[in-house]
C-alpha cells in the first residue's frame, strides 16, 4: 500500500505549539494552501514514517468547535467533511484543564483521535505531573506525551498515528454526559438525524449542535463543500475518502 496517503489533522487551542509540531513533522517542506471558499490559510505538508506517506494539515487554533467564528467553522468543517484519517489534538501540559475542553469536543465528532500532550518539559519544570495512562483510559483514546521543541516523543506519536491509520487501534472515546434535559433532547433527535443524514456524520454530535441552535452547521450540511482536490496531489484525497 505504498501509494496510500493518510490525512492527519492537527488541532488545538492557540499557542499550544501546534505549529512547532507541524514543522518538526514536516521538516521545512511545508507549503500553505487555501481551502476553497475560505480566506483562512492552513499550513499543509507531508511526512513519511515507516514507509507510509502522511499529509499533515495544520488547522487554525480554536477554543471550541461551536460556530463562533470563521476559524472555528473551518476547523469543524474539516473534521466533518474532509474526515481526516487521524486527528491529533495538541494540548498544553501546563494548561491541561482548559485545553481538554476542545479535546472533549473533538472526541464527540470522531473516534480517530490521538491526544498529544505538548510542553511536557515545561510542565515538569513547574512540578505538574500528568498521569497519561489514566488520562488515556478515561478519554478512551491514545495519549502521547511530547515536547515538540525538543523533538521528544515524536517517534512515539508517529508510531501511534501509524497504528491508528492502519486500523490497529480500537478507541472508545469518552462521551460527555449532559444534563437530563439535553440528553432527552438528543435521544429524541437521534433517530431523526440518522434518517436525514444517514451514517456519514457523527449523529449524536449533530443532534447536540442542532439543540444548541447551530444554524451555520445546518447550512454547511445542506451544501457540503466539494471534497478537496488540490492540483499536484489529488491522490492525497483518495486515501482519505472512505466511509467510517
Amino acid at each position, binding site marked *: 500500500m505504498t501509494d496510500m496517503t493518510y490525512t492527519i489533522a492537527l488541532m488545538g*487551542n*492557540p*499557542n499550544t505549539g501546534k505549529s512547532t509540531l507541524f514543522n518538526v513533522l514536516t521538516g521545512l517542506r511545508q507549503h500553505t494552501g487555501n481551502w476553497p471558499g475560505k480566506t483562512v490559510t492552513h499550513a499543509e505538508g507531508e511526512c513519511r514514517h515507516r514507509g507510509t506517506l502522511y499529509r499533515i494539515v495544520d488547522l487554525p487554533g480554536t*477554543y*471550541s468547535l*461551536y460556530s*463562533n*467564528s470563521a476559524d472555528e467553522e473551518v476547523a469543524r468543517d474539516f473534521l466533518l467533511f474532509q474526515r481526516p484519517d487521524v486527528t491529533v489534538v495538541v494540548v498544553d501540559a*501546563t494548561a*491541561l*484543564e*482548559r485545553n*481538554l*475542553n476542545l479535546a*472533549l*469536543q473533538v472526541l464527540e465528532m470522531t473516534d480517530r483521535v490521538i491526544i498529544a500532550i505538548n510542553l511536557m518539559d515545561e510542565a515538569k519544570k*513547574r*512540578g*505538574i*505531573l*500528568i*498521569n*497519561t495512562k*489514566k*488520562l488515556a483510559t*478515561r*478519554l478512551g483514546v491514545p495519549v502521547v506525551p511530547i515536547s515538540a521543541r525538543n523533538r521528544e516523543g515524536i517517534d512515539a506519536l508517529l508510531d501511534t498515528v501509524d497504528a491508528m491509520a492502519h486500523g490497529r487501534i480500537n478507541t472508545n472515546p*469518552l462521551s*460527555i*454526559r*449532559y*444534563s437530563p*434535559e*439535553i440528553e*432527552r*433532547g438528543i435521544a*429524541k*433527535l437521534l433517530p*431523526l*438525524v440518522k*434518517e*436525514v*443524514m*444517514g451514517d*456519514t456524520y457523527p449523529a449524536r454530535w449533530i*443532534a*447536540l449542535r*442542532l*439543540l*444548541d*441552535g447551530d*444554524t451555520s452547521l*445546518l447550512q454547511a*450540511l*445542506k451544501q457540503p463543500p466539494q471534497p478537496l482536490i488540490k492540483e499536484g496531489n489529488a491522490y492525497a484525497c483518495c486515501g482519505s475518502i472512505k466511509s467510517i
Partner: protein
Amino acid sequence: MPAADPSNRFDRLMTEAKSLAPDNVREQIVAAIFQTSAELYRECVTHTNSVKRDRTEQIDRIVTSKRWGFPIMLALLAAVLYVTIAGANVFSDSLARLFGTIETYLTMAFQAIHAPDWLHGLIVLGLYRGTAWVVSVMLPPMAIFFPVFALLENYGYLPRVAFNMDRLFKKAGAHGKQSLTMAMGFGCNAAAIMSTRIIESPRERMLAILTNNFVPCNGRWPTLILLSSLFMAAGYTGGWKTFVTAGVVVAMVLFGIIVTLTVSWVLSKTALRGIPTHYTLELPPYRRPKIMDTIIRATLDKSLYVLKRAVTVAAPAGILTWVLGNLHVGDTTVLAYLADWLDPFAKALGLDGYILMAFILGLPANEIVVPILLMGYLSAGALTEVDGLHSLKRILLDHGWTWLTALNMMLFSLLHYPCGTTLVNIYKETKSAKWTFVAFALPTAIAIAVTFTTAQLARWSGLI
C-alpha cells in the same frame, strides 16, 4: 444520503431541535464540558511543588480577584495619570516659553520684510499661534501618558482588565469581549470599531459599536487631563493638587464605563434584546516588555501620530477660525456672531457658544476641539502669546469659565458623538445609515442630558 428534497428535511429537523432545546442550552452544554474537563484534571494531574507555583498564575490570582481586581485597576490608572500630570506641568511651561520666543522672532522677520498686517495676522497669529498652543498644551501629557500606558499594555495587563470587566458586561447583557473592544477604545475609537469584528453575534457587536465612544480616546485624553489640571484641583497645592487632578480624570473614565454598561444594559433589554454568549478569554503570560523599545515606539507611533493629526487638521482650522474671527458683519465678527447664536443653548448646558462651536467644528477629529476653542477665544480680542498653562487658565477665566464649565466640557467631550473617522468606520462595519445615525444621536443626547442636569443642579443648589 437520502435524496428527496433534502433542504426541507433539514428545516424540519431544525424546527424539531428548537422545540426540544431548553432555554439555557448553551450554558448547560458548556457547563457539562467544563465539568468533565475539571474531573479529568483532578483525576490525572498532580502538582508536586505547590510552593513554586507559576508566577503568572500567582499574579493573576490577585489582579483578577473579585476583591482586588478593581481597586488595583483604578490604582494603576490613577498612578499613570498622576505621573502624566505631574510631568506634563513642568514640560508644558518650558515648551510654551520656547514657542513664545520663536513667535517674537517670527514677528520681527515679518516686520523686516514689511509684510502686510493681514498676512502677519493670518500666518503668525492664526496659523502659528494656534499650532504652537496645540503642541505645547497637548504634547507633554501625550509624551508621558502613551509610553507609560504602552508599558502596562505590553506587560500583559490589558487582558486582565478585560477579564475583570467581563463579569460586568455579561450582567449588562453584552458580550464579554466588549471589554476588549472597550480597552481598544482607550486608544482610538475608530480602530476599536474595527476590532468589534471579534464579536460574532451581530446583536452584541452592535452594542459594542454603539457604546464604544464612551471611553476617552487618544484625542480626548489630553482634553480631560488639561481641563482637570487647570480647574478641578484649584484649592489644593503641590502633590495633592496632582493627586486630585488624577482622581478627577479617573472618575471621568469610571463614569464613561458606567454609561457604557448602563446603555448596553438598556439596549439589551429593549432595541437589542438577547442573552450574552459564552467565550473563552486567554490570559497571556506576563512578559517584561523591552522598555526602551516600548517607550520609543509609543512616543513615535502614538504621540506623534495624534499630534500630527491635530496639527494638520488644526492648522487649516486655525486659518478658518482666524478668518471667521476677523471677517466683520456689521460691527461683529462672523465667529462672534455664530458663538452668540449658539450661546443660549450652550449656557443651558453649562458651556458657552465658543465651546459648543469648537465641538461642532471639531467633528473631524477630537484632537482639534481645544485648539479651535483657543483660536476662537484668541481671535475674539484677547491676544495672548503662548505662555504656558497659567496664561491658558487666564484666557479661560477671562471668558467666564468656572469649575462647572470645565466639568461640563469634560463630560461633553467624554459622552458626545464619535469623531468623523469613527462614524465612517461605523457605517462601513454596519452598512446601515440608520445605525450610524443612532451611533451619532444616542451619545449626543446623553451628553446634552448629562451636562444639562449638572448645570441645572449646580445652579439650583447655589454652587455657582
